[in-house]
């Protein structure tokens, strides 16, 4: 299955915001959940992952503007739609992931922008954790 199977905007969204399948699953989980807020523990229970890992994914998605933070102690997040177009895109992404899982997973794993991102990361002087 070629990467061309994915719609352009979906591929671009994945390239810009999603660096792992787990992150995508977290995003889609909160997308399905609508208005309710989730803590890392809740996410970890739902997806059978570690809370620490879930926390990292939630924070990263928040940093990308895909979630909003609704609590501080413990940190809770909720899916938020910045623009209607973005909301539609994520719905499309959810459908695409359901119907063409292999293509999506492959796109995430073999990010064509990886070299380009490496260029940008080269200018990061301070080491970022993880």
């Amino acid at each position: 299955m070629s990467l061309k199977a994915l719609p352009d905007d979906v591929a671009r969204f994945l390239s810009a915001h999603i660096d792992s399948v787990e992150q995508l699953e977290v995003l889609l989980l909160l997308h399905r959940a609508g208005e309710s807020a989730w803590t890392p523990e809740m996410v970890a229970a739902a997806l059978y992952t570690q809370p620490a890992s879930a926390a990292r994914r939630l924070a990263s998605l928040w940093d990308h503007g895909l979630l909003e933070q609704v609590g501080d102690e413990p940190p809770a997040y909720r899916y938020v739609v910045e623009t209607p177009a973005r909301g539609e895109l994520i719905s499309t992404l959810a459908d695409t992931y359901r119907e063409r899982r292999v293509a999506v997973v492959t796109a995430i794993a073999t990010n064509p922008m990886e070299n380009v991102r490496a260029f940008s990361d080269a200018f990061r002087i301070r080491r970022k954790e993880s």
Partner: protein
Amino acid sequence: MNRSAAMVQFLQFSSGFIVMGYLVAGLFFLRFWRDTRDRLFAVFAVAFWLLGLQRLLLALIDVEAEHEALFYLLRLVGFLLIIWAVVDKNRVRANAGRVVRRRAKLRVS
């Protein structure tokens, strides 16, 4: 400055080549910005285009040596932009593919 005709021709050719090179490199950076939404690339695109513009102006406008510094102001701005892009990348919570946020978010009613 006493240069042979051949040298002058070669320099003119080089100028054209360099302007084109900066233009195309800038276009690549612009594309990377489109694809990754990483601000660094947008800034690099503009910076490279400024460098190209400086070369272009230098080639087309006959300028006295003392006034050359004005053109290099363009180059300065270009390099300052690059510096700013690097500084910006290293600011708190550096994250690849940052999207502009911190503006009012629409709530799904």
